[in-house]
């Protein structure tokens, strides 16, 4: 196993560190003693064959699963128990492997929903939608419109997302995650089921998000070509165990990784 050494890209301080984390469901070990970190401003990919524990790892990061063992520190603070709500409040946003949007709502409203945590006026203020509540809404709408412009989805602003093609739904979901202005953005297979053109668009957006908003991104992806192009560092899991960690070039040359993907003679 190799620890990330001498990485040229000036990834800043450690944003999130995972130390010796294990997660079991009954007798099944989903994640077994994995350690790695995510640095501020980088694009970090997590790859591995099916059932390697990638999504479990994301779920641990945003507090959806509680690991039985190990330490997690986000922004330098070690975490005891955390719920997804706290993670969101703390600045972690995510998208899902299967699109999880409010299908009956418009793209605009879905992205607006991502601002919920940033709204400070209470329920009753929102109900009268007047004075400070209106000012606040206008401000939030402005931020949402910036995201709509950023993702080039102006044409579908008022379309219920259930009617949209899959690629656009994924984009709206990314928009909703961005609306939270997260410090850490978790993307679970952002390009699954997309055609080549949609993949290229999405890759562009991920790079732009990273560049424009300075958002740290952790993503799971099966398309190895995309991963190698996008990410600064790659973590490889297999059967819940970390088998490699390093720059795309290092990982590609790693014998353990090649074996995991191509299989070895038993």
């Amino acid at each position, binding site marked *: 196993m190799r620890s990330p050494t001498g990485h040229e890209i000036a990834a800043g301080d450690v944003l999130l560190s995972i130390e010796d984390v294990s997660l079991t469901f009954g007798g099944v070990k989903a994640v077994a003693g994995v350690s790695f970190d995510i640095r501020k401003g980088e694009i970090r990919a997590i790859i591995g064959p099916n059932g390697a524990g990638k999504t479990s790892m994301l779920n641990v990061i945003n507090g959806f699963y509680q690991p039985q063992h190990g330490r997690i520190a986000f922004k330098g603070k070690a975490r005891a128990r955390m719920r997804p709500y706290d993670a969101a409040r703390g600045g972690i946003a995510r998208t899902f492997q299967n699109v999880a949007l409010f299908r009956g709502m418009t793209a605009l409203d879905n992205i607006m929903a991502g601002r919920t945590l940033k709204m400070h006026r209470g329920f009753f203020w929102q109900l009268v939608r007047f004075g400070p509540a209106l000012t606040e809404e206008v401000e939030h*709408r*402005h931020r949402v*419109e*910036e995201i*709509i*412009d*950023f993702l*080039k989805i*102006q*044409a579908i*602003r008022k379309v219920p997302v259930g009617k949209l093609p899959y690629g656009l739904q994924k984009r709206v979901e990314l928009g909703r995650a961005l609306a939270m202005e997260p410090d850490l953005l978790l993307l679970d297979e952002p390009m699954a089921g997309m055609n080549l053109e949609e993949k290229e668009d999405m890759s562009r957006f991920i790079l*732009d998000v990273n*560049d*424009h908003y300075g958002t740290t991104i952790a993503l799971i992806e099966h398309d190895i070509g995309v991963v190698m192009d996008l990410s600064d560092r790659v973590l490889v899991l297999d059967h819940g165990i970390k088998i490699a960690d390093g720059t795309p070039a290092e990982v590609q040359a790693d014998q353990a990784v090649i074996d995991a993907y191509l299989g070895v003679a038993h």
Partner: protein
Amino acid sequence: MATSAAARADTFPKLLIRNAGLYAGRPAYRHKDLGIWQVWTWDEVLAQARAYAAGLSRLGLARGDTIAIVGSNRPRLYWSVMAAQMLGAIPVPVYADAVADELAYVLAHADVRFAAVEDQEQVDKILSVSDRLPKLEQVVYDEPRGLRDFDHSRLKAIDDVIREGGEALASDAVFDQWLDREIEKGQGSDRSIILYTSGTTGQSKGVVLSAIGCINAASDTVAFDKLDARDEALAYLPLAWVGDHYLNYAQALVAGFCLACPESADTAMADMKEIGPTFFFAPPRVFEQMLTRVMIRMEDASSLKQRLFHACLGLARRHGEKILNGERVPLAARALYALGELLVYAPLKNVLGLSRVRVAYTAGEAIGPDLFSFYRSIGLNLKQLYGQTEAFLYLTAQPDGKIYSDTVGSVMPNVDLRIAESGEVLFKSPGQFIGYFKDEAKTAEVITADGYVKTGDAGFIDAKTGHLKIIDRAKDVGHLNDGSLFAPKYVENKLKFYPNIREAVVYGDKRDFVCAMLNIDLTAVGDWAERNNIVYGSYQELAAHPQVYELLARNVAEVNRSLAEEKVMAGAQIRRFLILHKELDADDGEVTRTQKVRRSFVAERYAPLINALYDGSHEADISTEVTFEDGRKGSLSARVKIRDVATAPAPGALEKAA
């Protein structure tokens, strides 16, 4: 009066100054940004353009330089044109979707030193070919996203250029006066813009237009369509196309109307609904798409709504166009039409964003008569025009109330139009181009000895209406052996307007008479066969059926009658025709992928049939190789019947025995 004032202002920057005075508080440009329409009034636009020009001049742009404009319709790109013209530089708009190679060709050919572009995509494209553009010094961009990490030694945001230019003007009165003098120096004879034609054949050519020519041409059409400062247009046509520069940029400056730039190309139709333009141009394709969208949505409507819709459309078909043309219509029909307007036409136009349109134009290709009259019947003042880049667009246009779907209108005021011996349309026009940029030879090729410009299109003035009819590309027009004019596409289009005829190929150039090979439309003829109890097993069988021949012979005879009415075309009536045993197919190379018939290829492939058409026999055997959809090849043989058709008596045409 706008025209007289425009006559005094002989360049666009001077017109801008006039407008800033005349229409100071009125909107000049709108742009939907972050979901909200932003507005700039004429005086604000002048201030922006002056500051922009000052900024560009500080960067080194000077009189006589060329500056490329690449991107979609955004106010700052229109202002780039204005700012360049203020300094006496010549803007060169380029199609935003041009691939890097085309872009490189145009930018290199136009010797651009500067480029004003929309966003990172265009910057990337220009940088990728920068080794072919040794003269390019500076690129300015509108949208900063994604450009932060680029080397900014030759790159600057338009916003910064405007800001710095504005500051320089404010702090330095001498500089401010210098800019005013630069604008004053501009003359009508200056090269105002270079528009590169899209170039269907070979490399594109740069059409150089003079300032006064542009303004005079635009003034004529502004008067023709009575456009004024209260009008509004949606700027969604490609910046580099003469249509946008004319209809939007030039006409807006001359008439003082407002130009609304959509949020993005995808939202143009939705933005149109919000803006409600009063002047609208679209190619026939767009009108067709709009109609299709409506029809598809009507399929989902309740049966009551469907019946109401179709009843009202039927009424509109009978009376709508007459009402629009101001003809006499029975009072009862008028009352019903008013009810239809309330229930169907007005809401329909509103959905399409056409509610406020006073003048709508279409051009570019032939528009189907049904499509054309649909829009006119619901009360949209849709008209056709004919023109080209070299003329600065308009040569002819249909005047209000005098509309015929098969003409392109009457000759515009101040346009001198002539039909050459060969049938080619020649013109002299107010907006007539100076020449092709750096291409004297090509310029000389299209200008006749007496100074007329050749359009490359063949046409004639219709005796009945006095309107121009365009029949074909001039190079495709031929002659029968008796000397009468033969325009294949014109005849084919007439045939294809019949729903029964799917495709038609006619021959006649250097022959004694005209013959046609037809494809039936399987849907239309199949439907007809079903209703008439005609049994058939295949396309080939239906196509060979005697009653089908009978049906099509009637259509051909009608085409002949309509040809006979036009003196010029009367000689080109169809004497004999046959129905092909198979459909012309792109897989067999008989038509292009865009469904244009490859006439000479078809002639070679079906040579035995063509020989039979001309040697008088009544049937012929043909065997052709066909390509199936899975790529296998097979051969198809058939005995095809040939049928004679009577020609209609033609006034003045030489009658020869068949």
